[in-house]
């Protein structure tokens, strides 16, 4: 700030408003707070890309191996839905294969980084009251938003550079590597803007993250439908644009323009919304609550359910819609694989049809998504404890095990609800697309059969909270592991013993495989054992 502007500021009301005053100090504050988070995200993403790409390149060396990969994926609707359309696989290069496997997942993780960190430095800080101290200082109205955006832009650029350099270092062509990095940067900036808008709409950090996360989910879903069936739909999704840069497959650089335009538009919208609202208030209205508690709030379990009800509904609706859409495009699974040799390759040793294989993959994928709910629901116990909201409950005649068991029950029960509803809707979608109502119950059963694996994830989370509460967030790493192993295990040819660590690896692939009860029983027992250990830990440690 120059001397002149300082003088103007002292002249009172006649001075110019300074919307970003204090920006430099705020950026330093953010860097200090993110000195672990920021580097961890950047290094984590770059390492994920580097390791994933290196192992892919190691697996697919010869033209024959590359062609095998292309044949394997070209017929599978499930793979197109999960990984993208596979640009360049008609004439496969190593770069094209790496992109098919890694690009979309990388973009999603980049988007998550932008969402989490943007909300952390804007809405979550307002909610906690910390931002009030900052805003009471001579700091402009937009300074926090702008400071967080600058910091996230820096992180996104670092990720882009890291990814491009990794690819070049692995021997892939420079132009495609740059395109991959730039596309990721575009996605990161778009969802930075989306999160900034969500932070103005919602009045809590959790709600803001949920809104931005839903936007990411919708982008993914629209693109999935487009990539499997109606190709034009993919052009309505920023993830579709980013994939559409066609790295290593005749790059289309112009897709950067819509990405940047959307990012700028979101940023402008966030600024406009932020000028229209009060501090710590969202644009979405707050209604008064009831003066009396309903019967639900009579037990600790009721409280846990009430606190998570909105989140459970959100996860259920999101995953069920994804299931419905995946079901509705199930007939594509057959048309895509009319080639006999592919069909032979795809059909598991058992009796299942191609559609059954597709549905089995969907059950695993959506159960992994339900695992996201399960881990976050169980971790609520820890966040309630950290926020000193456990004390008023435990100061009543409520035992710790009863208190903690409420979180386990809601996590398990909520996951069951998600799986059943998503299974039903996937089955209904399949029934409509195949004109065969008999699919509904088997598909629902296939989804529900995943519950014991989700239960194991919950057990791991509870055990962490019981014995190493400060390290509870490791549960997210466990989720990331089962997701990577579950979705990319085959393509990355991850060794079997590594895959067998994931509980999802042991669940029979219904409806493509026959039912096996042994793994179901064993996994349920493991989940119960881990949760039990966790409860014992919670019983004997300090609270707080």
């Amino acid at each position: 700030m120059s001397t002149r502007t300082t003088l103007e500021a002292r002249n009172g009301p006649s001075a110019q408003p300074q919307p970003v005053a204090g920006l430099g100090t705020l950026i330093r504050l953010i860097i200090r707070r993110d000195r672990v988070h920021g580097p961890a995200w950047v290094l984590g993403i770059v390492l994920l890309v580097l390791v994933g790409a290196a192992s892919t390149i190691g697996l697919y060396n010869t033209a024959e191996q590359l062609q095998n990969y292309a044949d394997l994926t070209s017929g599978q609707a499930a793979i197109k839905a999960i990984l993208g359309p596979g640009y360049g696989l008609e004439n496969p290069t190593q770069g094209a294969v790496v992109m098919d496997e890694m690009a979309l997942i990388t973009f999603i993780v980049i988007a998550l980084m932008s969402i989490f960190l943007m909300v952390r430095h804007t809405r979550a800080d307002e909610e906690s009251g910390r931002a009030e101290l900052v805003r009471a200082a001579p700091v402009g109205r937009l300074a926090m938003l702008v400071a967080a955006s600058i910091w996230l832009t820096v992180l996104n650029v670092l990720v882009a550079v890291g990814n491009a350099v990794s690819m070049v270092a692995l021997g892939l062509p420079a132009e495609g590597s740059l395109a991959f990095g730039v596309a990721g940067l575009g996605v990161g900036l778009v969802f930075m803007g989306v999160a900034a808008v969500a932070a103005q709409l919602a009045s809590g950090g959790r709600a803001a993250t949920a809104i931005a996360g839903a936007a990411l989910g919708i982008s993914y879903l629209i693109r999935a439908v487009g990539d499997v069936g109606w190709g034009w739909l993919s052009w309505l999704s920023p993830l579709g644009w980013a994939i559409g840069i066609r790295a290593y497959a005749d790059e289309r650089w112009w897709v950067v323009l819509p990405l940047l335009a959307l990012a700028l538009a979101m940023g402008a919208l966030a600024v406009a919304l932020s000028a229209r609202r009060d501090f710590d208030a969202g644009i979405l209205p707050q209604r008064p609550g009831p003066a009396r508690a309903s019967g639900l709030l009579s037990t600790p379990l009721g409280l846990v359910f009430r606190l998570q009800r909105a989140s459970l509904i959100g996860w259920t609706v999101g995953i069920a819609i994804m299931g419905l859409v995946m079901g509705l495009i199930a007939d594509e699974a057959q048309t895509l694989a009319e080639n006999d040799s592919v069909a032979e390759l795809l059909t598991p040793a058992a009796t299942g049809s191609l559609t059954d294989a597709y549905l089995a993959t969907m059950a695993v994928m959506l159960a992994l998504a339900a695992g996201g709910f399960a881990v976050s629901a169980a971790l609520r116990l820890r966040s309630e404890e950290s926020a000193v909201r456990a004390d008023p409950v435990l100061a009543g005649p409520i035992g710790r095990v009863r208190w903690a068991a409420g979180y386990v029950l809601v996590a398990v029960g909520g996951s069951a609800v998600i799986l059943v509803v998503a299974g039903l809707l996937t089955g209904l979608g399949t029934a409509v697309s195949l004109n065969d109502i008999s699919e509904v119950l088997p598909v629902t059963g296939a989804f529900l059969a995943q519950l014991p694996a989700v239960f194991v994830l919950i057990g791991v989370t509870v055990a962490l909270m019981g014995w190493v509460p400060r390290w509870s967030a490791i549960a997210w790493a466990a989720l990331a592991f089962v997701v990577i192993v579950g979705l990319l295990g085959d393509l990355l040819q991850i060794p079997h013993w590594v895959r067998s660590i994931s509980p999802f690896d042991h669940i029979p692939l219904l409806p493509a495989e026959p039912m096996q009860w042994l793994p179901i029983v064993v996994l349920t027992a493991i989940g119960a054992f881990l949760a039990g250990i966790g409860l014992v830990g919670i019983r004997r440690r300090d609270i707080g």
Partner: protein
Amino acid sequence: MSVAISLRNVVKTFGSSRALDGLDLEVATGEVHAYLGPNGAGKTVTIRTLLGLLRPDSGEARLLDGDPWRDAVELHRRIAYVPGDVNLWPSLSGGEIIDMLGRFRGGIDPRRRDELMDRLELDPRKKSRTYSKGNRQKVALVAGLASDAELLILDEPTSGLDPLMETVFQQLIFEVKEQGRTVLLSSHILAEVEKLCDRVTIIRQGRAVQTGTLDDLRVKTRTSISVATARPVEGLDALAGVHGIRTEDQRLHFEVDGDNLEAVITHLGGFGVRSLVSQPPTLEELFLREYGDDVVPDDAAASPA
């Protein structure tokens, strides 16, 4: 006298720091007991230990004839707790939280609840994310006081209340006392302590440094004396416990330790006392003496002669 709370030589460490360092605390049934100490002295750790949220490393803790850790659930049916930093569920309304916490302990008397909300002027329909600190505290107070608990544990319950509500709170505690219930009150508001409390315990660095009635505590500190005598006083400085003797306007001013007061007064009697003003230490001086390192500011002790 039966005992509601008894801590003996309780130690609680967090890593290398000793939050409670051999703490003794005894609260008799039916009394209002003030629990005082500077910030970070260990008051909240004590209370969370009494609630069975923290497990003491060593020492003996008894609460209503039970073990606060082992018998937590049974004991909590008989106690009510109001925290100082009230953290509530942002998406629930104040009314919902009060009902819920009441039901956890087996139901809430709706008339008592409505009366308390009325007296404390709490709007139960607001979501708790929109409550101010004072209003969050009111939610916790209504939830705690609406119960018929025999022991109330209050951790700085009025730090966010306005003076009007502070008066209402004091009235409510008087009523609780009349019903013969026990209160452990941690507070920094000394006027409140002076009005409400039967006995006081002061802790510093995890140890109880003083405990007793306010009168007991006053004995343990210095009283300022201003005296005019017929004959000049001799030999005063030779007596034990006499400090800061000076003469001003032909009056003798000095301070004397509570324990030595009687001997000093007897000694003065031999010189023909014409007038004598004795000023007991204010509660504030008492605390300054206990909180700070033995420092009673000289002017504060001497000025109100």
